[in-house]
């Protein structure tokens, strides 16, 4: 029937075979690193990097060769479950996939290369590279898979590799706790993902994305019921819930409110890992997933996504304002940027969201690696001088631009990209996103004012905050005095050395990718971007979706982007000036900041503690959960077990009772009858006591009885 057509196996084509090779390379690297002896770790790591480089080249070739060509799809039957259409698996290579392949492989390669220097003295060097391979493999799996089930599988696997990499320094309690937290929070999202899958499975009995698209289009929405062409009927709400549930998966992985708490903690992992996983690729998987299933979402789910995205963008930016840790700032910034992307998905700016994903991947990776360089340099400094200080605390840094000029350059370029300064990549993608959001608010509110404007409003507000915290970071790290030295005057700044070449080269490549010119011929207008030209938002196929919605959005987006650009530039200037004013070298505010221990007001505390989400979770979920668990255990011990025990004891008592009854009653009866007979004998014998008077007595007694009987 229809299913056999929908899910028919599709043959392998050269591009998909290439995909398979690309997928296999990191896995082979993982196996190599996992099985080879520790002695050969250096050369093996170079081989691993080489394999990723090869994969990157292949994916670049793949991108170029499949540019603007229709999607390549290969599908094969995976397994059969009783009475159901076959469960398939396969590779779906479209433009998104090809682009993501390049991004993941390139960044992965750069991180591999960077790590050979960064991790060179680490005990777990081999383990580290193995897990990097595993991660790359899983990430590529998400990108290529044509089936939500497969995506889910790799989805969990990236969670696993993220877990393993965060807990790389497992001897540190904070690292192992962070890893655990990351995995569990991701699991929460995954549970939602699973429910989304279940809803789709119930309706369509398949999870193949291409088939789902067809089936979704065929399904009907009428009278509050959502009927699939299979005849399965659900309440229409489930259509929205399916979208939201799938988004829940993305919320977990992409650290969206309220599941963003794991990402800052994940900075416990090595910095290159943070760059690869927690900035560039894995956290973007949520965005990628949403893009994959974009056409299956309905308007309510989209609104939900946009709202959550905007809230997260704002919350992340606020939290980034007051962090001391150089990586934490970047982590919150990542959360914020991911919020932007998902807001983009939610507002229908599909292409802008993906565009931002790619630009962000590069500049954020660059930022992280640059931050890694700073940390590396300071660690070396710490090592050389024997000073003890926290190499990640920005309050200890300052003035490093002189000693780490190269790092400063990369950091500056990518910071500007992140802030969204014109001529840098971030400007293009962020503007596209904001104009999309603005257009969406216009469309949704139907011209009048409404709460929909809060979404672009939060977006613009976040621009201010982004500029503020990035300027703050730049100023704190690279300008002013090197504060460790100013505290310990017997050392000089000269002892801080620039990082090795291999690290620098990674920064170069990523820094270049942060420039606007790479992405667009006209770096002031995102609509001229070659990139956006290639990405086109697909038409949403959900039943009951307004067909005019997307064209109207695009129309408005084009018309409003000039004003959006102006607004955002104004916002950036405001943010940048505030940042400069507060944290310029020698400013009183900055001075007081370096000395104080605690946050000075409620707002700062709120920001520093990431809106107290951790505490809230502890209070609302963790504590009650543990309390209930312990309660259940003691309930089991005290109530169930005791009931069982007392049942057993009662049984024993009953047995004893029955034993007693047996002895006393049953045996007693026998004994008694014997005793009774004997007694009777004794009694009658005693009557025959030879005592005549006794006989007479009894006779008289008899007479008494007789008289008694007669007169009554």
């Amino acid at each position, binding site marked *: 029937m229809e299913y056999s057509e929908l899910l028919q196996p599709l043959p392998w084509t050269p591009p998909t075979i290439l995909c398979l090779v690309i997928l296999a390379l990191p896995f082979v690297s993982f196996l190599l690193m996992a099985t080879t002896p520790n002695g050969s770790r250096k050369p093996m790591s170079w081989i691993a990097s080489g394999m990723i480089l090869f994969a990157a080249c292949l994916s670049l070739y793949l991108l170029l060769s499949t540019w603007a060509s229709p999607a390549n799809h290969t599908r094969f039957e995976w*397994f059969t479950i009783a009475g159901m259409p076959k469960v398939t698996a396969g590779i779906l290579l479209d433009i998104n996939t090809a682009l993501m392949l390049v991004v993941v492989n390139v960044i992965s390669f750069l991180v591999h290369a960077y790590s050979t220097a960064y991790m060179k003295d680490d005990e777990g060097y081999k383990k580290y590279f193995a897990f990097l391979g595993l991660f790359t493999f899983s990430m590529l799996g998400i990108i290529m898979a044509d089936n939500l089930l497969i995506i889910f*599988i790799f989805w969990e696997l990236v969670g696993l590799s993220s877990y393993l990499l965060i807990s790389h320094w497992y001897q540190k309690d904070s690292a192992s706790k962070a890893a655990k937290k990351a995995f569990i929070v991701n*699991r929460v999202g995954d549970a939602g993902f699973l429910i989304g899958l279940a809803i789709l499975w119930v309706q369509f009995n398949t999870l193949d994305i291409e088939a789902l698209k067809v089936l979704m289009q065929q399904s009907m929405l009428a009278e509050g019921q959502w009927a699939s062409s299979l005849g399965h009927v659900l309440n229409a709400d489930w259509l929205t819930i399916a979208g939201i549930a799938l988004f829940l998966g993305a919320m977990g992985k992409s650290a969206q409110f309220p599941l963003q708490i794991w990402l800052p903690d994940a900075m416990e992992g090595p910095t290159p890992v943070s760059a690869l996983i927690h900035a560039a690729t894995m956290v973007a998987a949520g965005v990628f997933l949403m893009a994959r299933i974009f056409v299956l979402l309905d308007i309510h789910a989209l609104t939900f996504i946009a709202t959550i995205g905007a809230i997260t963008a704002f919350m992340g930016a606020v939290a980034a304002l007051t962090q001391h840790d150089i990586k934490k700032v970047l982590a919150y910034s990542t959360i914020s940027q991911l919020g932007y992307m998902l807001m983009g998905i939610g507002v229908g700016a599909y292409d802008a969201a993906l565009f931002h994903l790619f630009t962000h991947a590069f500049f954020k990776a660059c930022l992280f690696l640059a931050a890694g360089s700073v940390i590396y340099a300071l660690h070396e400094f710490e090592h050389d001088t024997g000073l003890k200080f926290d190499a990640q605390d920005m309050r200890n840094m300052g003035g490093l631009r002189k000693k780490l000029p190269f790092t400063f350059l990369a950091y500056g370029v990518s910071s500007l990209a992140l802030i969204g300064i014109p001529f840098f990549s971030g400007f293009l993608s962020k503007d596209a996103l904001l104009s999309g959001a603005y257009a969406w608010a216009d469309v949704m509110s139907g011209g009048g004012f409404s709460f929909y404007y809060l979404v672009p409003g939060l977006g613009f507000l976040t621009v201010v905050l982004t500029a503020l915290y990035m300027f703050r970071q730049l100023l704190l790290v690279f300008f002013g005095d090197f504060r460790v030295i100013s505290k310990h005057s017997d050392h000089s700044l000269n002892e801080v050395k620039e990082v090795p070449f291999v690290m620098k080269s990674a920064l170069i490549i990523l820094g270049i990718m942060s420039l606007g010119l790479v992405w667009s011929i006209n770096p002031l207008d995102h609509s001229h971007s070659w990139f956006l030209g290639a990405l086109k938002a697909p038409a949403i196929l959900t039943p009951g979706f307004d067909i005019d919605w997307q064209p109207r959005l695009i129309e408005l987006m084009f018309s409003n982007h000039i004003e959006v650009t102006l607004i955002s530039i104004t916002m950036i200037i405001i943010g940048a000036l505030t940042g400069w004013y507060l944290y310029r070298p020698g400013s009183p505010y900055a001075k007081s900041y370096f000395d104080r221990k605690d946050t000075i007001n409620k707002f700062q505390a709120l920001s520093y503690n990431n809106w107290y989400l951790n505490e809230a979770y502890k209070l609302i979920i963790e504590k009650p959960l543990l309390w209930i668990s312990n309660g259940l255990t003691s309930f089991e011990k005290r109530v169930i077990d005791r009931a069982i025990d007392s049942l057993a004891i009662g049984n024993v008592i009953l047995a004893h009772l029955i034993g007693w009854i047996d002895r006393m009653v049953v045996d007693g009866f026998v004994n008694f009858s014997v005793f009774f007979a004997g007694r009777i004998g004794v009694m009658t014998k005693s009557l025959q006591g030879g005592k005549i008077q006794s006989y007479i007595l009894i006779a008289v007694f008899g007479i008494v009885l007789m008289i008694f009987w007669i007169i009554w």
Partner: protein
Amino acid sequence: MLYNHLLSILVFLPLTAAIVIALLPASVKHISKHITLGIGCIQLILAVILYLGYNSSIAGVNTIDGFQFAVNIPWINLELSTLGKLSAHYFVGVDGLSISMVLLSIVILFIGVISSWNIQDKVKGYFSLYLILNAAIIGCFVALDFLLFYLFFEFMLLPMYFLIGLWGGPRRDYASIKFFLYTLLGSIFILIVMISLYLSVIDPTATAVEYGLADNIEQVTPEMEEKVQSLLSNNQLPTDKLVHTFNMIHMTNEGNYIPKSVMDMHAVRMILGHPARLLAFLLIFLGFAIKIPVVPLHTWLPDAHVEAPTPISVVLAGILLKVGAYGLIRTGFMIIPDGALHYSWWIGFFGVLSIIYGAMNALASRDLKRLIAYSSVSHMGFVLLGLASLTAEGVSGAVYQMVSHGFISGALFLIAGVIYDRTHNRVIENYSGLASQMPKYTIFVVIFFFASMGLPGFSGFIAEIFVLLGAFSSSSINGLVPKWMAIIATTGLILSAAYYLWAIQRMFFGKFFTKGPVKEDMLSDLKPREYIMLIPLFVFALLLGIFPDILLNLINQSVTLFVDVIGNHGFQMLEK
């Protein structure tokens, strides 16, 4: 020739060996473990033959001809004058549901032998009991005659009791008696139902012979059986010509029920105001629920696991729990489908309750083995939920979970055994940072913990996801299990991640130190024998996770028929 007797060999070979070991002179008692290992090897070879010879396109389930490797020999025949004739057969055979269990059992039992290699104490007794257990387990999975099934089912109890009670930990007396009482209680419920079924069901073939339609069993044609059944339904058969049977397959056939008997499907008898068949299902469910185990009848499990020696924990978690689930499928669901449908909401509810309750308790466990035991409770809840949904996905998922949990929980108990072997202490907080001291061990722990929490790539994932899909779709396909149960069950996945990761974090990560009675020099990394045990389980869990067809091919036909029979047939009956 071999095919016909394959199952019998599988059952009676260990039994014979048990007798041989019991008769060994004390001077050569050390070879008893070699004998047991040899039997295990032979069984493995036979299992391969079984797997290769099995025709997965035949469903079995409720058709006598559909069972493969079947042997059906009269066993007990009694003339009961006016009560008719009693006939119990030695009837064994496998279909998709049971062959997976048989294969699982053989593998786990083999691994159990390797794990028992270090037993020093009362070697002869241990291994002969182990072999008796072996025979009873396989017998239970292949028996198709209720009496035979019950016999094997009860037979498992005794060696298990002694194995826990004699070779167990410090509180073994308590644990073994608790185990014994619980399961004995369950058996009694099953016995009641078995007898009432026996009184209600006839063997149409034998009755045809008895009635004079044919001279012997070979000559009986399906038409004759139909004639017997129509005569029976019209009350035209004299009672002394009825041949009562324990045959489970006959029990699934509506036509074989004596009108107005206790379990009659047409005119429902009421007992205490409840339909007798529903009560019977309830009893069967209770009986097997203890074995599965279902919260709140599970408290024997943590104690039994904690006190049992490692190999016995492995067998207990890997196979014995599955006997409960398998029995529920084979008897409860197949014979009384109307009851299964009527109570499906409750079955699903108890499944979900087990999932959450088990996970919560695991979260609060301070003992590694207890944690794993509770995780077993939690995972067996998925089996129940899948069965309750009675959708193809759900039931497949449930059967898959049974097999998958067999491998994974077996491995988990081996893992707990590794640490117990070295330190005789399983309290989680006594350890920290084991990853730096025992890196290889840690790798296996992480692998199996993740496998158990349903990480994709391992068998548990396929099982759990299909159970959840099935439970979710049940409400729109047959309306048996509401959606919220599936949604709550997914939180079980989160909780399982929580307790496993927390355990990993506490025991394996962090700075290396030990507390309490545990000394640092006790901890050495894995030994070759332990690799031999863990690697096969790892391979099986991985294979089943990546190529689910290996198992699904075996069970698909049976599951399809099973769902079809119960779904359609049961609903018809329930309406009556």
